[in-house]
């Protein structure tokens, strides 16, 4: 019995990452794979010809700016939480949530712009792909907004501070990831359009 309970550590400790944070990273890997599949499908399909050419909605430039700005806000909130500046944390979170919603509205207007251009969801795959990219990304962004709102609520309950940062860190990571994902998609569309 005594022998069983002795500790020995001949090797380095396992990677010491918070399991939930690690799981979030793995989840982001799956999201990357979905979009990697979608964008490669786009390239494969495009190379076969019969491809409708149209202009990308200009509003994408604005929504890209919004998404970057929201990440800046959230990062500010993150640094504030680390320094126990709760007012700054709330401001950062609220800013990120509001800008996130603004981004979603902007994406909706990109669809309006596409319809004005007579590019519909049903029709040549070239247009359908754009709807799928933006729609699928918006769906993930909604999950990010919900996550931020949950963190915001807990920040009002004083549950986020320099000694309880796990959720805030996860929210920040996920949000930056979603912003980066949009920038990738936009860049991809600019290059392969």
């Amino acid at each position: 019995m005594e022998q069983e309970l002795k500790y020995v550590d001949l090797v380095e400790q396992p990677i010491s990452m918070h399991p939930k944070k690690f799981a979030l990273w793995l989840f982001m890997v799956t999201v990357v794979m979905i979009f990697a599949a979608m964008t490669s499908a786009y390239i494969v399909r495009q190379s076969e010809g019969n491809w409708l050419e149209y202009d990308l909605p200009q509003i994408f430039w604005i929504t890209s700016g919004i998404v970057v700005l929201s990440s800046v806000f959230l990062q500010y909130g993150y640094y504030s939480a680390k320094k126990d500046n709760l007012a700054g944390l709330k401001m950062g979170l609220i800013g990120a949530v509001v800008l996130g919603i603004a981004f979603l509205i902007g994406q909706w207007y990109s669809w309006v712009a596409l319809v004005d251009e007579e590019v519909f969801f049903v029709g040549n795959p070239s247009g359908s792909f754009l709807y799928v990219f933006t729609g699928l990304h918006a769906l993930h962004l909604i999950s990010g907004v919900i996550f931020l709102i949950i963190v915001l609520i807990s920040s009002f309950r004083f549950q986020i501070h320099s000694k309880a940062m796990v959720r805030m860190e996860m929210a920040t990571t996920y949000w930056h990831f979603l912003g980066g994902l949009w920038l990738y998609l936009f860049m991809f569309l600019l290059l392969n359009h």
Partner: protein
Amino acid sequence: MSTASVASHESAHDDHHDHEHHDNFVTKYIFTTDHKMIGKQFLVTGIFWALIGGFLSILFRLQLGFPDMSLEFLRPLLGGWLDEAGKLDPTFYLALVTMHGTIMVFFVLTAGLSGTFSNFLIPLQIGARDMASGFMNMLSYWFFFASGVVMFISLFIPTGPAGGGWVVYPPLSALEQAIPGSGLGMTLWLVAMTLFIASSLLGGINYITTVINLRTKGMSFSRLPLTIWAFFLTAVIGLLSFPVLVAAALLLIFDRSFGTSFYLSDIYINGEALPNTGGSPVLYQHLFWFLGHPEVYIVLLPALGITSEVIATNSRKPIFGYKAMIISMLGITILSFIVWAHHMFVSGMNPFLGSIFMFLTLIIAVPSAVKVFNYLTTLWRGNLIFTPAMLFSIGLVSFFISGGLTGIFLGNSAIDIQLHDTYFVVAHFHLVMGSASFFGLLAGVYHWFPKMFGRMMDEKLGYIHFWLTFVGVYMVFFPMHYIGIAGFPRRYYSWTNFEFANMYTDLNMFVSAAAIITFAAQFIFLFNFFYSMFRGRKASLNPWRSTTLEWTTPLHPGHGNWPGEIPAVYRWPYDYSKPGAEEDFIPQTVPLSATPESNLPHEQEQVKLEMEIMKEEEEVLVANESKH
């Protein structure tokens, strides 16, 4: 001194556990977060689906082997799917083939195999209390359950379940007008698969997180049992490939229900032109097989991992080439992602691309052969103990060889022109992937049954089950090679329409009869499984005299697995028949310092380090004690 502190520690833990786990029926058996119970849930559900999937195959084997037979006696079950003469409806035949494939590949050999053993064994073998997230683990099972409910319902709707083959290629699967099986049945198929993918991803994220973050002290990656390596890599493959199937399915859903044209172009049905233009059906094949091929290894790797463990234990020898095993599994994992187009040699793909994929495909023969070689050399001159689990593991190796060899032919893009979509393919993958993985699953059940239920399965029934199944599988699938080389295509309703196929009628009858006997033999297992669960001989703590951590738990481990501290690990998991050792196995929990008689020179070096660390630990314990 230290003993006292340890004892107080232990009792504190006991209190903790008594306090926490007063489970009622619902939290213990239904909405449980205990990985062991979730593993058993996956197993029982997997067995249920295996019976349905097997039964469906018997139905279409009856049609293939005895085309003139009246199935009137099945009317109560099949109802309108039989015509007046008692013959099977041809579209229902397609649905049967489709559902057999879907159920066996996804529900039985993915969820039933990975779900059962990854859940059950990962925490037990790495020394963890539970999975990283018990809640996500519970969700994983219930998503799988919901997926099963949807799939089950689809079996009973008037238009029948999905009928486009388990690969559901568009345009056949995208157009409701095409066949009855592309209607509501196909929609339900897509819904069920979406739920299934969610389940797999939840499970997979958990497995990876747990293996990386929750290993006990001393359990380095180079001391992990090969089962854990296999489950880990399986989860990685699933994590990378299932999202791609989501993408493929999503576009298919849009094509089916919203009128987009991702996969559809220039199609006429009954002389009427469809509005879709600009789609590419080959695009679907690329997306599908990017999952589809790794899926083969999702199915196979856990079975190979289980086999490594069972063969080493029952040969009383260390596994031959532990590192080579890991490297070849890593190789298989990586290669599995860059060979998908060998399923598409005749899809109109660029032949030059075909040569590249052929080359990459044939490279997989190398790690596979390394694994086979290592199994055989582990068996070579071992003190073999033929438990049922051992027999099934050896059976797996046999199928892996005989089925793998035909893979070399199929991987050649030129030979594939003749063999593509014939019964040669059916024979190949049923041996190498289907039967091999199924045998891995059975070996795992026989081997870990004592840990799951605290009782032993009956060995004699196990032997009967093994021999009937082993001989039966070869009887079923070996003749198919000949039929395939003759050029007979798979998924065809009837053999008698072609002159060249007529001479195979007898052979088909033989195959069907063998299939029925093999299926019937599974009921021996079923009886053994459920009977032993309640009435089996009580198991000892370590019935197979195995080295791994799960056998250090109590006979009926509670939620948390070990009543006291989690044991630390001091050595690799394959110290069987070590020269000089008293017993023919040394558990992973025995320190090197306790076995000076059997230590190798480099291990003797490690003993010094081990002693130092133990001393430090003791000091920490004493210091903590004085603080109290």
